[in-house]
Every structure is written in structure tokens, then in C-alpha cells.
């Protein structure tokens, strides 16, 4: 396909959902539900078709295509073109984003059939899709930042969609507060990058912030970078600031406290937040700017360990929580932790592979959980559910398969993708012991993942129904079941794009051009190496071991869960309190912050500004005005005398 046509089509991909947002935002109140849903679905569906057309027409080994729509140079001499970058990474991402957003829209159309504010929800859903597509396609850091912030705003709106509920507002505010901290840091990182020598163009004057441009500048650096110590420092500082933004956005430790509270909107919000848009943008950014991060390998190692710790942390917390959607949120945090292990050790394509697989199976799981909740009269507490299999057989099967994929049932997509990351961290990229340590943390997380995911399934669908007896749980409508079923069937087979067999041109080959400068290329990845089979065996062993445990506890009920809870009360407490993170943030930031703002409010605003300046000015005028009032006696003759005095004064002054 000629570049000219691609240029138009690629522009349409984010523009169509944006158009949907504009239509629904301006005319949504006047449209009926059917037309609202069809506007939202059709725009995203068209974007998906266009993405498919482009991904099929751009060859794997083609050079990277950059399309510039608008050239813009800031006053500081930084050129920031409005342009898109088309390579296998961004193409894979836009297909995933549009596809899952499309299915989510279909699900929402059924879920919000009777909701009077559906148009508002669909509008923001469309805008979130458009922003994510802009972020993915962005050619330079600043345009990426535009998409990044737009994603944040839309996420905030979607979390706080049910704004009449306090929980919803609180969740949105939590995301917003943590996001502001992260985004400020992210912007600082971009500014540091812009002033660093990496951004200087070949003419030596103007600067550019293109992803590709900076990567090439880094490639052009001499290998013994001793003369460019200043440059390395600047690049590392920029990477640290960027990384803080990513930690906040993707819910890594220690800023992992927002995703669980963000589960207050409709379930489609969780899909967008956890699987495809908000938390995903951090993963995508590191993959996109991996050349920059590879300048500071220690930082990447820290990221890998942080990811491993996050994976274990969130998986253990998910084991004890009782709210379905909170459990799934912690599950997402844990899975993102695993992706960051991959990114941190340098296995970028494995991380992207896991990201794509996770997006598929987690979306189906979240949507199925949404069906469960709406089918049981908004019951989110798994202690009050149970035995739903007889009422909702279709959802039960769906949930079972998705759980198996998430938990890593051998040879399904979750197994293959998380294994790719763990294998790489243990064997391929084990440059330092720390990388191996991160891999081991990942295996520990896998153990807990099996436990929490099967516990969730058993608690909801097996045993006896513990809800109110007068309420019959209802199976979700057929339309509502379409999207999760499509996703779950995909998740059974999608993993095969990442089979480590050289005869299959899978995802690793597809992404090879993008990550060709990473430590090890896909060519060396091929083949079932002994390390690979070992990793599979270890993984499978952990899976079976953990499954036996969880089965005996929750399905066969050999042991009383209450007894376990009492016996391991101290550990249970730690998991339940989320390792004290929430309390820590409350004690360290929220309380002093509340105290300080209270101080500003009472002492500065009320006492000084209000009573001192504003009221004080009035009082002073009131008090002093009696002096001037003495002269105003109302007699015209007195005023004439003042005139006379004034003239005499003037004449006297003039004669001096």
C-alpha cells in the first residue's frame, strides 16, 4: 500500500472514536439508546477494521514508517511534529486496543440498556479509546504525553462515572491524586530529555523529541561513553523521572493503591483501565522508549525487582480479599508486575506478548465478573455468592476457562506468555543475579496466582448459594455473553503466536525489528532450549501443586477456611491490610496533607485573607471615613468656600 493511503487511514484510526465522542457528547441526550450504542460501536469497529487493513498491508520487515501531518516548532527550537509512527509494535497495539475496545462497547451496549446516562459513558469510552490510540501511535515524546494525559482524564471520568456514589468519587480522586504526582514527574523527565544532548539535531541548533530520533542518537553514541558522562547522568535522571510516572500509572509498588479503588464504575471501565488503556500505557512506553532506558541498566534491574515484588504483593493480597472486582484489580496489578519483570530484564517482546495475552483473558474475566454481579442484583462479595453454576452455566464455563488461562494452565496463553517472561529472566537475560531474583519472584507470584484465581472461581460458582433466598441469580443476556466468549476462545489459542518454535513466525519475530537493539534478538530465542523445557516443567509443577492446595481447601473443603485464617492470623492481617501500604500513605501523606491544608484554610485563608485583608480593608475605610465626612455638610456655600481656598492655595503655590 502506498504511503499516501496509509497516511489517511492511520489518521482515521484515532479520529473515528474522537468523532464518536464528539457526536455522543454534543447530541447524546437527544439520541435513543440504540443509536447511541451504534455510534459508539461503529466508530470503534471501523477503527478496528482500518487497523487490520494496515497491519496486513505493512510487511514485517518494512522500514519504520513515519507520517507527519503537521509540522510545529516551539519557540525554544524544539520541533514537535504532529505525526504517527508505524512499526510492528504500534500496529500490534492498535489492533489490540481497537479490538478489545470494540468488544467492550458491545458488552456495555447490553449492560447499560436502561441507563439514562449511557451516552455520557459511551462518549468517554470513545474518547479513552481515541486517546490510547493517539498515545500508541505518537511519534514523539510530547505527543505521547498528550495522549498520556488524555488517557488520565478519561480514566478519571470513567472511574467517577457514578458520581452520586461516594466510593466512586473517592476512587476517581485517588487515581487523580496519584496520577498527578506521576504525571508531573513524567513531564519533568521529558523536559530533562529535551535539554539533554540526546535531543540535539545534526545541525546543532534545533532539538527534536522523536522516539526514533532519540533512539538513533543513542545508537550513534561511542561505545566507551566515558566522555559523555554528563549525557549519561542526564539520561539516567530523565529515565528515573519517567519511571516514577510509569510506576504511578501502571500501579507498581509503592503506588499500587489506586487500581483496587478504581473498580467502582461499570465493569467496562475496569477492562479499559486494567487490560488495555490506562495501566497498559506504562508498559507500552517502556517498550517504545526502551533504547533510552537501556542506557541505565541498573535502573532497569530495579524495575525488574520492583515488578517482581509487585507481582508477589498483589497476588497475595488478591488471595484474601472478598470483593470480586477488587480481586481482579489486584490480579491485574500482579500481572503488570510480571510484565515489568520482562521489561526490566530486557525481554521486551516477551513483555509485550504477555501484555497482549493478559489484555485478552483479563478482559473476558472482568466482563464475566460484570455478568455475575449484574445477574445477582449487584452482589460483589464472594462470601455471599456461591453455587452460581446451576443458574449461570454459560458464565460459569466462561469464567472457568478464563481462570484456567489466567492461572497458567499449561499451553494456554497465560502459561505461554508469563513463561516467556520468567524463562527469559532466569536464563536468557540473566546478566546479573538480580534478574534471576526477579524471575524467582515471578514464580512465587505464579503460585499465588493459581490460588487466588481458583479460589475466586470456586467461591462464586461452586458450593452453595449464600445470597438472599428470594433472589434468583440470572444468567446474563446473550448479547452480554458475546464479548467475553469471543475473548475467552481467543485466549485459548492466542498464545500460540508466542510458541518458542522457530518454524512458527510468531510475535517475537514480528517485533524483532522494533527491539533489534535489545540485548538478545529473537533469532537466538528460537527453539525449545533446555532452559525452556525446564522453565515449563517448573511452571507446570507449581501450577499443579497450587491447584491441589486450592482444590482441597475451597472445592473439597477438607479444611475449614476460618481455622486457616485464625492459625495464620498475623500473615493474613498483613495480606488483608495490603502490607500496610494504604495505612502508610494515609499516615505519611494524607494526614499531614489534611493538617497542612487545614492550617492554610484556617490560619491563612480565613484569618489572614478573609478577616485581615478583605474585611480589614472595609473596616479601615469605615473607620477613617468620619474625618472626610466632617467636610461634607451639604451646604453649597461651604463647597464654594472650599473652591476658593483651593484657588488661593494654587495661586500661593504658583507664586512660590
Amino acid at each position, binding site marked *: 500500500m502506498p504511503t499516501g493511503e496509509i497516511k489517511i487511514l492511520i489518521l482515521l484510526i484515532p479520529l473515528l472514536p474522537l468523532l464518536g465522542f464528539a457526536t455522543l457528547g454534543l447530541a447524546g441526550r437527544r439520541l435513543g439508546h440504540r443509536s447511541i450504542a451504534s455510534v459508539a460501536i461503529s466508530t470503534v469497529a471501523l477503527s478496528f477494521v482500518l487497523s487490520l487493513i494496515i497491519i496486513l498491508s505493512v510487511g514485517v520487515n518494512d522500514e519504520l514508517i513515519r507520517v507527519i501531518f503537521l509540522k510545529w516548532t516551539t519557540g525554544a527550537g524544539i520541533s514537535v511534529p504532529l505525526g504517527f509512527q508505524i512499526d510492528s509494535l504500534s500496529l500490534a497495539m492498535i489492533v489490540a486496543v481497537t479490538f478489545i475496545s470494540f468488544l467492550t462497547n458491545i458488552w456495555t451496549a447490553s449492560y447499560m440498556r436502561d441507563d439514562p446516562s449511557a451516552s455520557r459513558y459511551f462518549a468517554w469510552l470513545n474518547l479513552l479509546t481515541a486517546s490510547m490510540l493517539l498515545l500508541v501511535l505518537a511519534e514523539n515524546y510530547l505527543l505521547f504525553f498528550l495522549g498520556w494525559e488524555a488517557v488520565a482524564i478519561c480514566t478519571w471520568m470513567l472511574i467517577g462515572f457514578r458520581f452520586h456514589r461516594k466510593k466512586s468519587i473517592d476512587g476517581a480522586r485517588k487515581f487523580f491524586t496519584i496520577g498527578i504526582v506521576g504525571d508531573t514527574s513524567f513531564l519533568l523527565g521529558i523536559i530533562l530529555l529535551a535539554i539533554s544532548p540526546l535531543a540535539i539535531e545534526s545541525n546543532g541548533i534545533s532539538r527534536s523529541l522523536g522516539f526514533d530520533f532519540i533512539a538513533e542518537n543513542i545508537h550513534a553514541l561511542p561505545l566507551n561513553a566515558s566522555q559523555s558522562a554528563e549525557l549519561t547522568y542526564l539520561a539516567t535522571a530523565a529515565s528515573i523521572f519517567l519511571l516514577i510516572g510509569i510506576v504511578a500509572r501502571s500501579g507498581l509498588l509503592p503506588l499500587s493503591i489506586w487500581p483496587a479503588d478504581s473498580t467502582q464504575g461499570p465493569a467496562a471501565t475496569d477492562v479499559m483501565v486494567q487490560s488495555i488503556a490506562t495501566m497498559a500505557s506504562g508498559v507500552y512506553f517502556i517498550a517504545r522508549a526502551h533504547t533510552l532506558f537501556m542506557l541505565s541498566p541498573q535502573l532497569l534491574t530495579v524495575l525488574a525487582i520492583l515488578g517482581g515484588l509487585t507481582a508477589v504483593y498483589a497476588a497475595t493480597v488478591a488471595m484474601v480479599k472478598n470483593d470480586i472486582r477488587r480481586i481482579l484489580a489486584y490480579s491485574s496489578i500482579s500481572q503488570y508486575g510480571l510484565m515489568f519483570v520482562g521489561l526490566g530484564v530486557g525481554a521486551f517482546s516477551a513483555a509485550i506478548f504477555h501484555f497482549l495475552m493478559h489484555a485478552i483473558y483479563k478482559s473476558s474475566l472482568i466482563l464475566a465478573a460484570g455478568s455475575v454481579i449484574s445477574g445477582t442484583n449487584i452482589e460483589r462479595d464472594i462470601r455471599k455468592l456461591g453455587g452460581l453454576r446451576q443458574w449461570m452455566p454459560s458464565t460459569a464455563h466462561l469464567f472457568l476457562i478464563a481462570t484456567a488461562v489466567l492461572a497458567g494452565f499449561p499451553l494456554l496463553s497465560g502459561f505461554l506468555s508469563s513463561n516467556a517472561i520468567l524463562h527469559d529472566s532466569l536464563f536468557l537475560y540473566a546478566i546479573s543475579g538480580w534478574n534471576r531474583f526477579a524471575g524467582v519472584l515471578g514464580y512465587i507470584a505464579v503460585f499465588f496466582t493459581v490460588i487466588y484465581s481458583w479460589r475466586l472461581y470456586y467461591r462464586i460458582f461452586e458450593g452453595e448459594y449464600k445470597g438472599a433466598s428470594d433472589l434468583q441469580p440470572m444468567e446474563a443476556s446473550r448479547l452480554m455473553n458475546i464479548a467475553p466468549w469471543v475473548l475467552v476462545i481467543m485466549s485459548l489459542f492466542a498464545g500460540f503466536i508466542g510458541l518458542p518454535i522457530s518454524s512458527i513466525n510468531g510475535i517475537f519475530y514480528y517485533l524483532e525489528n522494533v527491539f533489534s537493539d535489545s540485548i538478545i534478538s529473537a533469532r537466538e530465542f528460537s527453539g525449545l532450549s533446555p532452559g525452556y523445557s525446564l522453565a515449563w516443567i517448573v511452571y507446570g509443577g507449581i501450577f499443579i501443586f497450587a491447584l491441589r492446595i486450592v482444590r482441597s481447601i475451597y472445592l473439597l473443603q477438607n479444611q475449614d477456611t476460618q481455622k486457616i485464617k485464625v492459625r495464620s492470623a498475623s500473615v493474613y492481617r498483613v495480606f488483608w491490610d495490603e502490607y500496610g501500604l494504604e495505612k502508610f500513605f494515609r499516615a505519611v501523606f494524607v494526614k499531614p496533607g489534611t493538617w497542612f491544608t487545614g492550617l492554610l484554610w484556617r490560619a491563612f485563608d480565613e484569618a489572614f485573607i478573609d478577616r485581615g485583608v478583605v474585611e480589614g480593608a472595609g473596616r479601615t475605610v469605615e473607620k477613617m*471615613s468620619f474625618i*472626610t*465626612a*466632617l*467636610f*461634607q*455638610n*451639604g*451646604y*453649597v*456655600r461651604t463647597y*464654594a*468656600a472650599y473652591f*476658593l481656598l483651593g484657588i488661593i492655595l494654587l495661586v500661593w503655590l504658583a507664586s512660590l
Partner: protein
Amino acid sequence: MMVQIAFLAASALVFLGISGVILRRNPVVMLVSIELILNAANIILVASDRMHGTTDGSLFVLLLMPVIILEILVAFAILIALFRGESNADVDELSSMSG
């Protein structure tokens, strides 16, 4: 010699006018006094022309005269509005604007 007399006359008129405004309470007389002051200004303008041998001042007088007439007209309109229906016209009665 003539010029000095004109200046002296103007000063006398100003003095008379000011004392009229300040001392009298009848608004009509006060307006007449203001007229005296303004005419004193006119005399000074013409006299200065004589002294310097120019004509600019006299031109200003021609401009000033209609201005003075209009002013007095406005003042009379206000006065008539204020004292309509009242037999007694005394400006000291109108002291409600005191501070």
C-alpha cells in the same frame, strides 16, 4: 493704563462673584454671581489680548459665551425641578447630601 483698569475690574468682579456665591442663599442670585466670575475671566482674556497684541483670547471669549449660556440653562433647569411648587427658594434647605 486701560489694561490695568481692566484687570482691576476683573479682580473686583471675581471677588464680588465669590462672595455672592458664598454669602447669598438665593440660588438665582448665586447663579448671577457665577456669571460674574465667568465674565471676569472673559474680561481678563480680552485684556490680555490687548496687552500682547494678539487675538486668540478674544476668540476664546466667543467660544466661552455659548458655553456659559448653556451652563446657566442647565443650572436653571435643575433649580426649577428642585423648587417646583415651593414658594421659598433657599439652597441651605438642600443639605441632605451631607456626609
